[in-house]
């Protein structure tokens, strides 16, 4: 091949590279939390200071699984890259982490500590992620046990990164993320250059049930356990309580259904 055509081939390469828009292969980190099953009994022990985990089935937090993890896998499948999960918790969370690996994550990290509060989770993840140059860090909208919606924004602050909250759709192209958020009933379309932190809500992806191959593969995928960074608790949960039992329901015969409206107005005073 003559030098000229070589140069041309090279230029051609560059052109197709730009034209086809070959995406940069992404490094994605997904925060996975370990929570009681959505139907789990809620009871407390030790004088109402601790959740009673006896006989409780634990699952991957639905927002982390169905939305964050599955969307991360879809982006990786479309554009290339890696999906690493991180969990802050003790060895009891390992089966939950293996589930995330079975769904398709490449590898997992567990920070070996019982987190003191949401800030502690964020601080532990930040300590791990700060020098790893992730393009995208995905968290769930909230955990279904703690319901803080705190970890995502705290992590973004600790890493000094932009944050998109409550994303219901997420796409990445040309080093930029585009997301749709449901805010006050409206849909807001936002854009942000990578890297950033996103909290994921319903709509982002469909649930994936792990297949046998995934489950087998998960057994041998790397799960790295790392020691926790030294942190101080900023908050503490002192005790729990259960809501007072509901009053017995007042039944209204179907033929007199209109009476419900009267009662809601004159008795309950809510309309």
């Amino acid at each position, binding site marked *: 091949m003559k030098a000229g055509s070589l140069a041309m081939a090279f230029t051609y390469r560059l052109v197709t590279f730009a034209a086809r828009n070959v995406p940069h292969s992404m490094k994605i980190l997904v925060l996975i939390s370990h929570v009681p099953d959505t139907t789990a009994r809620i009871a407390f022990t030790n004088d109402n200071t601790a959740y009673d985990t006896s006989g409780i089935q634990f699952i991957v937090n639905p927002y982390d699984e169905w939305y964050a993890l599955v969307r991360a896998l879809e982006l990786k499948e479309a554009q290339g890259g890696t999906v690493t999960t991180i969990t802050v918790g003790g060895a009891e969370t390992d089966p939950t982490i293996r589930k995330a690996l079975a769904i398709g994550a490449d590898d997992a990290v567990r920070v070996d500590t019982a987190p003191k509060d949401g800030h502690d989770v*964020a601080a532990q993840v930040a300590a791990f992620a700060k020098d790893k140059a992730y393009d995208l860090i995905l968290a769930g909208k909230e955990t*279904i046990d703690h319901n803080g919606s705190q970890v995502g924004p705290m992590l973004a602050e600790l890493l000094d990164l932009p944050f998109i909250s409550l994303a219901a759709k997420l796409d990445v192209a040309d080093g930029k993320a585009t997301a749709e958020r449901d805010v006050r009933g409206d849909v807001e379309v*936002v854009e942000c250059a990578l890297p950033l932190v996103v909290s994921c809500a319903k709509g982002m992806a469909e649930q994936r049930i792990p297949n046998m191959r995934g489950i087998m593969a998960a057994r041998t995928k790397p799960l790295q356990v790392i020691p926790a960074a030294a942190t101080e608790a900023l*908050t503490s949960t002192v005790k729990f*309580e*259960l809501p007072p039992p509901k009053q017995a329901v007042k039944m209204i015969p*179907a033929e007199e*259904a209109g009476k419900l*409206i009267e009662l809601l107005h004159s008795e309950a005073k809510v309309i």
Partner: protein
Amino acid sequence: MSVIVFADTRGEKVAKSALETLTYGRKLASKDGASLTLVTFGDASVDKLAALDANKVVVARNIGDADSQQLTRLVADVATKEGATWIVFSHDDTGKAVAPRVGAKLNAGEVAGAITLPNDQGLIKRNVFSGKAQAWVELKTPVKVISLLPNSIPVEAATGTAAVEEYSGDLGTAKVTVKEVRKAGEGIPLPEAEVVVSAGRGMKGPENWGMVEELAKELHAATACSRPVSDMDWRPHHEHVGQTGIAIRPNLYIAIGISGAIQHLAGVNGSKVIAVINTDPEAPFFKAADYGIVGDAFEVLPKLIEAAKKLNAER
């Protein structure tokens, strides 16, 4: 010593959630003998801001659709200058993104979704396990951040003549930019609604939602639905309430043809009053209800609409 309240004052009317945070902040301030500073952004008029119940208002103009990093800088900067001990947000879309960031920036503990003021021991209550339990939380840091769950405390109306100060610090540019807003249409936004009419698979198909919407209209209510209903695209996704949808706590939740699965209840059990209409007397929702009708939605709804029209005509 001061209490900082962050409230979004954009729009024609100051949102109820903003007035709730002001009430909450006012109570904290009077307990501690502190002053109350309202921090806001946008283009609200000086008159409107001055009339809000605060000692001082700091407003950042010209930052448009500020992102969470800019708002964090704004609140943290004002809080530091004012020597804030408490920083109060609403646990709404903006507060959920900014309050934790401010906590992390100032190394201050945060209670997300507080439902009470601090008790005698300084503990604050919040919902956990999707409303199936509550937790009392202690904030161990000198600066304390609260995001207040909407509809948790009654607004105490007050007017003031606050000094309005323009914020002059550098907030940088927004990294997250808003490209487009698709308006959902006329209805009342679900998270802000005081009355919600919700329906499930018992309605059989999307073509039957006319009655649900009509009842909602008569009751000045927002509409909501169960998850299968939005999964099947009978209704838009933003109407889906529950564990994986949104959590709401209206004064009244009317559930029509919804079984009351635990994951659905997780999103609505904070409602003050629940009324359930279901053909099945064994439907679990009746256990969570204050009022119940065992009956066919297709027969009951027209009666409810008629009664609501009558009530509206009378008042």
